[in-house]
């Protein structure tokens, strides 16, 4: 699967989509779900929580392991994907459609520090050994 060019990324395998209203939508990348294997549980953050960039914010658990999802930007959690609680496998099916949470970013400057698709792809490829 190609890494969508319209998204931004972190080196810890989150994708970030900038919405027209200034909020951002966050999920984990295709590469991340592939490394984890079948997902069986998603623990989303509490709506209203203030998170700092890089802070552990959600947990995705697969048949194999648990992985933290980190806040790609500082801000307030606006919403969590209600469908994932009953169907975590949606992330395996389409990692870029199955968003985990939405944030209202505090600092637009942080957004500029995220990776573009090509830079993220380089990191993912290096891990594929």
């Amino acid at each position, binding site marked *: 699967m190609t890494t969508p060019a319209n998204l931004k990324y972190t080196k810890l395998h989150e994708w970030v989509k900038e919405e027209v209203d200034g909020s951002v939508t966050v999920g984990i990348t295709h590469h991340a779900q592939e490394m984890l*294997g079948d997902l069986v549980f998603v623990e989303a953050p509490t709506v209203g929580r203030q998170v700092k960039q890089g802070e552990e914010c959600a947990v995705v658990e697969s*048949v194999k392991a*648990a992985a933290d999802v980190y806040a790609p930007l500082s801000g307030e959690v606006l919403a969590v994907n209600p469908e994932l609680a009953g169907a975590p496998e949606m992330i395996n099916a389409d990692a870029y459609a199955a968003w985990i949470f939405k944030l209202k970013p505090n600092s637009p400057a942080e957004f500029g520090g995220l990776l573009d698709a090509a830079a993220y792809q380089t990191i993912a490829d290096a891990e594929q050994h």
Partner: protein
Amino acid sequence: MTALKTTPLNAIHREMSARMVDFGGWDMPLHYGSQLEEHHMVRRDSGMFDVAHMSVVDLHGANTRDFLRTLLANDVAKLKMPGRALYSCMLNEAGGVIDDLIVYFIAENHFRLVINAGTTDKDLAWLRRHAPKFGMVVQHRIDLGILAVQGPQARVKVLALLSPDLSQAAAVLKPFNAAWSGEYFVGRTGYTGEDGFELILPAGELESIWKQLFAASVRPCGLGARDTLRLEAGMNLYGQDMDESTTPLETGLIWTVALDASRDFFGKSALLNAVPARHAVGLVLRDKGVMRGHQMVTTAHGDGEITSGGFGPTLEHSIALARVPLAVAPGDQVSVEVRGKNLRAQVVKPPFVRSGEVLVNIQ
């Protein structure tokens, strides 16, 4: 870095787009796309596992039975007819588990062991250390490979591929019995809680049999599904649920230890003198989350530890095997520290699943 060891099926795993992992120095398939689907196929139909990393050891000599009665905690005197198999631990003097294995009675001067991959070197050293006294020949059969075919449809699909004479003999095998023809060996055993066979074949024949089974819609399954299946079946994994620091009494294997007075065996006196403080139980998680190995269990009788934990795909709940104080019993509520949170779990008696059926209350 040393190169990973490979089984004769390595090329075909890669051809089938398996996700390969380093499993104790072996390059093995974790899954071929979806571990969950592979798990469900074994419960509902049939799946096959490359377990050629495990070792076959043939023991030859007139005193083979005496040798094994001295080395194994279970008693091969129970094996009265050729073809019968027995699950046993092999213990050190302190009663610690060197390995768990299956022993097959082939002839009075020939028994066969199937032992774990990661323990092969030390097992062989232990067997060979004690072999001379019994005049034994210990033969590591690296020329053979093991394939597990498991699930309610597994036996039918295997039987169709065997030679007529072997197929006929294998068709009437009871659980924990084996039949063979030349170097084709079929045991009605497994590590999934489902019916099925484990095939021991010349290494060069594995790929052809794998392809024929695949053509018969037997699903290739990786070590991931093997682990969730055995966990649901309540079966121990060596190195995780037990090792040389645990005795069979602490890990739910007391039923495999024959402590009667008729014989002595390595570890017996240690077991007779030991008063185990802990025992193995099953846990079903009541809260949302997934239990994992090494997490701490808090009970009304003291602390314990998860030895194997994960998500049980058939139960759709997280389950675990745990070592807890002796007073903890099925029905008790305990708490498990999962990623900094204390989650509620219920103590149950394994297995969780057998022959496709859920045996524990998960509500």
